Every structure is written in C-alpha cells, then in structure tokens.
C-alpha cells in the first residue's frame, strides 16, 4: 500500500515558488524527510539507517581530505600516512576518524541488517529494498578491502595477496583474472595505484545506491516492529520532527562510542602488524583481515577438505561468496506469512542462535585455524629402545622413490634374519637411507605424554637425554588423540549459517504456528498508553 498520497508542500516565499516551478527539490525534500509518514511504533533499531548515512558522510569527507596528503606509491605510502599523523594540521584526528569510522560503519550496518532479518523487513513488498541493501553491503566490503591496502603495512600487503590469491582458485579464468586485477604477478605498485583509484570511486557508487535504497524504502514505507502494514493515518507520525529527533539523539550516543575509540583507543580495532612497512619477502606470523571481515575469513578457511571434484581452496572461495550471496535471495527463501519474529517464537530462537553463530565465526576467523579447543586425551608417544646389545647398520638403496617402502621392508627383514630384535629405518633421500638393527640386550619402552605437542616433544627429548648413551637408537611412536580444532568449530558454525537460510527459514515459515499478530500498528500502542495511564 502506497503511503504517500498528495504532496502537502506549500512554498512560502517568492523565491521558493519560483524554484518549485523549475526544480522542485525543496518539495522533494519536504515530502521525503519532513511530511513523510513513518509508523509511530518504531523502536531504536530503526535509528541505524540515519547513523549509516552519517558514517558514509564521515568516511567520504575524511577520505577526500586524506587523499590530499596520501601518496599512492609503494615507496611513499607508509611514510605519507606517517606525515599525515605527525605533520598535517589535525592529520592525526582525520586519519583516526577514517580508520575508526570504517569499523563504526560496519558495526552500524551489521545491526541494521540484523534488524532487517528479525523484523522481516526483506519480505514483500521490500525485496528490492533488501537487495539494494545487500549491494551496498557488498560494495562496502570491497571498499574496505581496497582501503586497508593503502597504508601499505604488512597486513595491507599480505591481506591483499591472500584475497587476490583466492581469485586464482576459480577454474579456467582464475589465473588471468588474478593477474588482471593485480596488474602483474604479485601485489606491487600497479596494484596500489589502482586500488587507490577504486577506493576513491566506490563510496560515490555506494552513495548512488543509497539514494536508490531510500527511494525504494519510500515507495513501500518503513516496516515496523509488529510487521503489520500501515492502514490509517493513526498509525503514523510525520518524519520531522518525530523520527528526526529520535535519529539525532541515537546518533549522538553512537558518536560518544565513536569518539571514545578515536580519542582513547585509536588502534584497538586494528592490528599491530600494520605498523610494520610492507615486506614482500617476509610473511607475518598470522594474516587476518579487520574484525568486520573475520566471519567470512572463517568460512573461507573452514573448507580444508575437497568436495568431489571441487578442491578445498575453491570450495572455501565459493562458500565465502555464497554466504553473502544467500542474502540476496532471502526474500524468496523465507516462506513465513508473518513478517516480524516478535510473533514467531521458534524462528526467534533460531535467530538468536544465528547471531551468536555470526559472532562466533568472527572469533574463529581471528584464531589460528589449527588451535586445539578440545581433545579426548593428551598427546602421547611411546619410545622403545634396547639397552646393551650389538648394533648392525647397513645402507638402504631403492630403485625409485616409489619403491622405497619395499626396500625398507626388505632391509628390516634381512636385519631380523641376522638376529636383530629391534630395527629402525631412516630415509635420508628419495631413494637412499640407513637401516639399523640391535641384537641381544634388553628391550625397554616408556610412554610419555604432554598437554600440547610441544610439551610432548620436550618430554621425548628429556627421556632420550636421561637414557643417554645406554641406548644406541630409539624407535618413537607418536599418537595424536582426536582433537576439536578451530577449523572444526568453523565447519559447524558455517553449516548452521547456511542451514539457517536454506533449510530453517523455508521450513519454519510453513510449519511454525505464529503468535497473534495485532490488527493495526496503532492498537497496541494506544492499549499500552491506556494501560500506563490507568
């Protein structure tokens, strides 16, 4: 149902009447942001749209100013950022504003998106509004990635290397696209220059899509916490001053948090390694993107196994793009007739789990993928040796690398025939090695354990030194208990992520019994007021 009918704008002065006949921009502004009716029951989750407009403005203005001083050249980029921080008047402030602003932008957009998911703002007739939002989000991700390269720190360089590498995973065209984007075989000056140009460009494309997003919004009108359509004038209030004032208030609270980071914790959301100038010859101990991209990083790394003909690297890339892609088709996945999860008690619980899963994926993305979270037992190793006894040593030669196992087995067999009670074969090259056997003496064995692999290795070394010369050589058998790593956790979380969109929402829409949805927006609001007054 179209909210807006007839424009109520009346130009007051001669100039505004003249302008209205030629370019009705004031009329458009009035109709869109003053008289425009919004549901009266909107809660604070609806203020994030205004905050996002502010964030976009802050990033564009601070970015243009930074571009007056930044030098997009591999030899000068890092130094130019230092110059901005040290020598440019208020450069430290503008630089911090831009870096922290990116994080604030993403924080606000995630809350804005979760609001949309919870209240069903993506459902008809707002499908295109939602899709435009997804496009804005994808452009934001691209812009952030490009921008992070510009300071040319270690994380800038290596993050760009990793992400452009994943394009190489695409079959057939992957390699050429990779070279085309980089402008060469590796991330270098051509890459930096074009990334700067594109980083400057994309925010203006975002601004254009935002205009479409607001246009689409105004066609359908705002959703509201009940998910019930606007039916009468009673349901709405004019945007100015009601929504304007609420947005301003909420935004000033948002700015308090923004300012706290800028002035007291400017580097808290960044990574120390990006203060090390980029070094193509040395990879940092860990390569991680900024926090807002960590969930996707976790999904990318969760695929450490091949799926049929699709190798793990490609699987990870496809899953990562699919995790954003699935959002685009969400309006058609959710089959529920009820918009707002306020009245969908089962869906709401799955949604809460979904939010936790997203946060947990973010945590996983920042961890070492091999980090062990749980294991059934400690790491153990059993050492066997023979004390006293005679050692016989003989070289092993295989015909080819593939024939090694057979040659080793043959060497062992021949040593045993010669009376050896314990044998060990060491491979030194592709086709050569040594075989040793001990005959006589007493066989001993001991098992050591450790909570971590390092502890176990230390225990092995300690045991070897304590036995010392008594044993000519040891046979070490290491056992790894079943472990649950960060990668395993990421796999479970990724599964839930896709399950939520592809299975849960479609099924719940059809099977769930929703709560009682109010008839109109105004009724519960008035009922609440009456109850409060009474």
């Amino acid at each position: 149902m179209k909210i807006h009918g007839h424009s109520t704008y009346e130009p007051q002065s001669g100039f505004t009447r003249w302008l209205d006949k030629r370019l009705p921009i004031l009329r458009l502004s009035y109709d869109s942001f003053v008289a425009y009716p919004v549901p009266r029951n909107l809660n604070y989750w609806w203020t994030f749209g205004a905050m996002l407009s502010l964030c976009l403005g802050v990033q564009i203005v601070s970015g243009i100013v930074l571009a007056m001083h930044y030098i997009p050249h591999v030899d000068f980029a890092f130094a130019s950022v230092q110059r901005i921080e040290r020598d440019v008047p208020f450069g430290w402030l503008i630089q911090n504003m831009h870096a922290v602003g990116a994080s604030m932008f993403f924080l606000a957009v995630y809350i804005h998106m979760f609001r949309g998911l919870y209240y069903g703002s993506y459902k008809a007739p707002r499908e295109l509004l939602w899709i435009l939002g997804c496009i804005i989000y994808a452009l934001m991700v691209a812009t952030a990635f490009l921008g992070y390269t510009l300071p040319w720190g270690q994380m800038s360089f290596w993050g760009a290397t990793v992400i452009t590498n994943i394009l190489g995973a695409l079959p057939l065209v992957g390699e050429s696209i990779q070279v085309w984007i980089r402008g060469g075989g590796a991330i270098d000056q051509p890459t930096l220059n074009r990334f700067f140009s594109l980083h400057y460009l994309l925010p203006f494309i975002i601004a254009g899509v935002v205009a479409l997003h607001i246009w689409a919004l105004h066609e359908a009108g705002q959703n509201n916490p009940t998910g019930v359509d606007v039916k009468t004038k009673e349901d709405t209030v004019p945007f100015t001053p009601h929504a304007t004032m609420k947005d301003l208030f909420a935004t000033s609270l948002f700015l308090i948090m923004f300012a706290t980071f800028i002035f007291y914790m400017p580097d808290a959301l960044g990574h120390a390694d990006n203060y090390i100038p980029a070094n193509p010859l040395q990879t940092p101990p860990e390569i991680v993107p900024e926090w807002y991209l960590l969930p996707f990083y976790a999904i990318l790394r969760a695929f450490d196994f091949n799926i049929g003909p699709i190798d793990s690297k490609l699987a990870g890339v496809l899953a990562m793009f699919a995790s954003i892609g699935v959002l685009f088709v969400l309006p058609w996945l959710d089959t529920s007739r009820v918009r707002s999860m306020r009245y969908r008690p089962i869906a709401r619980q799955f949604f809460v789990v979904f939010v936790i899963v997203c946060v947990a994926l973010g945590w996983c993305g920042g961890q070492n993928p091999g980090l062990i979270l749980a294991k059934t037992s400690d790491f153990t190793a059993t050492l066997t040796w023979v004390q006293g006894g005679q050692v016989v040593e003989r070289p092993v030669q295989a015909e080819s690398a593939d024939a090694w196992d057979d040659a080793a087995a043959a060497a062992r067999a021949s040593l045993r025939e010669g009376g050896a009670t314990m044998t060990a074969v060491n491979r030194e090259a592709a086709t050569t090695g040594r075989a040793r056997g001990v005959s006589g003496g007493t066989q001993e064995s001991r098992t050591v354990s450790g909570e971590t692999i390092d502890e176990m290795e230390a225990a092995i070394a300690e045991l070897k030194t304590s036995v010392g010369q008594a044993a000519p050589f040891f046979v070490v058998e290491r056992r790894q208990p079943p472990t649950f790593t960060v990668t395993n956790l990421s796999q479970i979380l990724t599964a839930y992520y896709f399950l939520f969109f592809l299975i849960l929402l479609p099924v719940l829409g059809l099977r769930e019994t929703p709560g009682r949805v109010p008839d109109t927006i105004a009724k519960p609001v008035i009922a609440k007021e009456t109850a409060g007054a009474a």
Partner: protein
Amino acid sequence: MAEATADAHAGTETTRRDFIYIAAGAVAAVGAAATIWPFVDQMNPAADTRALSTTEVDLTAVELGQQIKVMWQGKPVFVRHRTPAEIAQAHRDDYANLKDPQMDADRIVQEDGQPGRAEWLILEANCTHLGCVPTFVEGSAFGGWFCPCHGSDYDTSGRIRRGPAPKNLVPAPYVFLNDTSVRIG
C-alpha cells in the same frame, strides 16, 4: 486524556518546547562549527612545509661582486655581494626619478628591524612584470639586472628603472645569524 493535559498547559508548553529545541540546536551548531575547523585547517601548510620555510645561506661562498641564486620556499632568491661602486650608485639613485620610489637602506633592512649591511642585497629573483628571472648585467644602463622576457631594467638596488615591470624586485625577508650567514624567511 493526554490531549486534555496538553491544552491546559498550552501557554507554558510553547516556551518550554521552543527553549529545548533552541538549546539543542545551538549546542549542535557549535559542535558542527568546531568539527569543520580541523577539515579546513588541514589544508594549511603542514609542519614539514613550515620547517622548510626558512633557508640558511653561508655568505663566505659569495665573492665580492658576485651573486648566488638560492631556493627559498620553492622560489629563486638572489644573494648579491655588492661592490662599493654598486653601493654608491644605489645610494645616488635614491633620489632619481623612480617608478616605485624606495630608499636603498629600506630595501636591505632585516626582518627583525635591524639595519642591513650595504654589501649584502637579498632579493626575490622574479621580475615583477610576469615572473621571469632577470640577469645581472655589468655595465648596463642602470648597473643592475635586465629581464630578457620583456626588457625590464633594474638598478644596483633592484629597483625598476625602465620597462614594463610595475614594482621593484621584492626584498626577501632575512636576518643575519652571524657575520657569515643569513637565514632567509
């Protein structure tokens, strides 16, 4: 019920409502202005540019009757070691018919107000007509610089005597750091 209460307080409501809007608006406006200042100020010369805004010159390298050209803030500057003959001519010409009248002593005064030294003349090397760099020609009509672009003639104090240039060569601000060096700017 809410409406009834509103009507009763209609009179006092107006002023209270307006006050809070005016107060909030004023505070927000102050904040907006304070926020705009850093964005304007950042275009002002940065600390490194300001630090290069002075150039020090070692005068022992300039022989009597010679001049050197140094760069100061990206512009060329003449540092001339004048001969007594040039100085005498400059003083004589103080009373000549000058397009841009100025005493030689006033053209060599230091930036801090101290008098300069007659043998040291420090001028911005751009012709005041359209900016070309003039050449010092000994034995020329007025004893000083000649600009090849449009034929402006300057005297031994750098004052315009003949030609299209409207003003004298501009003295660069300087101070003597000691007997053998000056700081320009």
